[in-house]
């Protein structure tokens, strides 16, 4: 019974983190939410008897994907609604 309750809580966290990642305006928080998706997803894979896939998702999804998104945000803009200076000058 506890396992099924755990599965449903995991599913709710997964969907909530996905919605948060899409609607959040601050991109750094959105990227961290995709990291949470990967953590919960690897637990899901373990429960579905796929330890190989769980290890892959843990190593690649959590660490490497998150860090390349963060590097991209460092080199671009952090705020989603930010308009460039050229654009503001034009109008």
């Amino acid at each position, binding site marked *: 019974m506890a396992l099924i309750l755990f599965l449903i809580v995991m599913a709710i966290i997964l969907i909530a983190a996905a919605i948060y990642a899409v609607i959040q305006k601050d991109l750094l928080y959105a990227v961290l939410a995709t990291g949470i998706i990967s953590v919960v997803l690897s637990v899901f894979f373990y429960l579905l008897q796929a*330890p*190989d896939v*769980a*290890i*892959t998702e843990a*190593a*690649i999804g959590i*660490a*490497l994907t998150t*860090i*390349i998104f963060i*590097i*991209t945000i*460092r*080199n671009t803009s952090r705020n989603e609604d930010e308009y460039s200076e050229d654009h503001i000058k034009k109008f």
Partner: protein
Amino acid sequence: MKKYIIFILIAILGWTLAQTFKAIPFGADRRGDLSNPNKVAAYYLRQSPETLQTANSITAIVVNFRGFDTLGEVTVLFLAATGLASILYRKEEEDKTEVERVSLPSSSLVRTGAKILFPLILLLGIYVFVHGHLTPGGGFQGGAIIATGFLLMLITYKHFETNHNVMVWLESLAGLAFVLVGLYGLFMYGSFLQNTKSVGTLNDLISGGLIPLIYIFIGIKVGTELTNILDILLKIKPGREQ
């Protein structure tokens, strides 16, 4: 207007997916007859311990039964790394400014911790890809873990540099060795990436014929490749180009 069309399209897609997966019951046995295999899943599950003596049947599929696909996958990874390097390329002659990977120096606690953790992470990665045919894990996972260890050093120490030549040579030699193992199968047994006849006994470290050898090469290649991708991305020059 565009928004509503997209909402309708997404709703149609969701409904179609829901209807499709209603017809595929969750948890039903779709592997076919195991004693007399008529589907690939049953065939692989039977052949993995019997003829290949490989404990982890996923490794047997990835490296042996679908080995050619894995060669293609490694090629795609290599092409992606090459494409990324050429997209982010900047001429060294025009621009000799030193790029700092991290703007703030890390504290001595982080530096000491990273120094202790780095060899342990490398050891874990090597363990994962050497034991790929016995336990969950393998070349791709082990390579990713090794890249994570290098990432820790790259963002902790300002002056830590991976030797570019060593990395390139390791990557090229590992990729070449994978193809050479495939050609060995072609010349000895008549088909590309064919496994050897003597495969050892189940659950030994040296079992599964050529499977551990190929996974070690994949592990080295993936580890160096992902480290190179992270190194290139961390060295992007800040500011704008004209």
